[in-house]
């Protein structure tokens, strides 16, 4: 009679260890993989809603118009109609949520930011060399930012 086959004990031990490792890995993976992983692809679908959850700083032109419709109407009649309010006035979400929060006061910086002459700027843009143009302190002495073609 042939002797019954028996797995040698050293092989059995390694086999059991391997099974143990694979099983514990599978269990850990099952429990720790977020449910939304592979929802859309090889990533956590939840990441989308987490990135979405941040609060904006800039409220957008529409939010400004809700209260400042008179200024907006004026702006839209002139060349500066394409400008965003928050480009010059700074981020306004906090001010939009609570009007008591003041928005930054402007100086004449925002004007020359676009209109200072620079050979790289497109020709259609009105440009000035500030030191030849005016040496006073404020652009607004002669110009109305919301209505650039008008005189104050």
């Amino acid at each position, binding site marked *: 009679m042939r002797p019954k086959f028996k797995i040698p004990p050293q092989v059995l031990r390694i086999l059991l260890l391997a099974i143990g490792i694979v099983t514990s890995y599978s269990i850990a993976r099952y429990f720790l993989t977020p449910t939304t992983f592979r929802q859309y692809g090889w990533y*956590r679908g939840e990441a989308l809603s987490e990135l979405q959850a941040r609060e904006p700083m*800039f409220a957008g032109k529409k939010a400004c118009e809700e209260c400042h419709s008179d200024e907006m109407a004026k702006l839209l009649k002139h060349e500066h109609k394409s*400008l965003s309010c928050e480009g010059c006035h700074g981020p306004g979400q906090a001010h939009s949520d609570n009007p008591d929060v003041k928005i930054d006061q402007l100086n004449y910086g925002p004007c020359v930011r676009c209109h200072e002459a620079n050979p790289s700027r497109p020709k259609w843009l009105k440009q000035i060399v500030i030191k030849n143009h005016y040496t006073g302190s404020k652009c607004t002495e002669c110009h109305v930012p919301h209505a650039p073609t008008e005189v104050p």
Partner: protein
Amino acid sequence: MSRNVSRRNLLAKIGAALAGVLVAPVARTAKAAVQKVFVSTGAAKGYDPTKHRWVMAIDANRCIGCGLCAEACKKENHVPEGPYFRTWVERYIITKPAPGSGAARGETLVDCPSGGMHGYPEPAVPKEEIQHSFFVPKLCNLCEHSPCVQVCPVGATFDAPDGAVLIDPKYCIGCGFCIQACPYGCRFLSPITKTAEKCTLCYHRITRGLKPACVEVCPTQARVFGDLKNPAPEDPIRQFYENNKVQALKPHLGTEPRVFYAGIDKEVR
């Protein structure tokens, strides 16, 4: 093999079957409990990413190099101080070739001091020697075949179904592979979070129906943003495609950028 089914045997079998049925919900409950501790749950969604396809386009003819976009991006996304930008504006200066040299174009000079946020110094060459000069806003090129996504070893960066290429900050291990892989230099390692960061198309804004901060503040509409799944013909992005001849950056790399540029020279990379 015995065919006898004893009472004890039958009861044991029924018990095992019941246990098998019960294990599944128990495991599911246990998994939920474990995940509550180890994996945080996200905010509720009122936005379906499969219903949009966001994209940006740049009309360099209209860019005046004011740098408001770069500054707004920094403020909106709390980008760290210093040389870290999610979007920036480069100045290209192409000089005239030396007279009689037989060359078509001179040197290409590119600079971008602090992302263009605080203006540009006088050009290094006098005005008369400039053949052509212009500004080029840069941002994530939203590649169809994004190298950054391919190299991420942990599935932290991905192409979202709505077209944005995003980073899961909780999964990012800060290895920096994606930063090296991006041929457009659009990524950086945040010194604060030690994870990779990039333009998200202002994901928190576009999902609320707002425009990205850079598009919002751009005074000349050099940046155009729209939804390719929006059927309305007046969507600004459609208008842009209809009115411009466009090109992508580094097309030879096969990344198939979805951000198209109008009005740039061949020197722009």
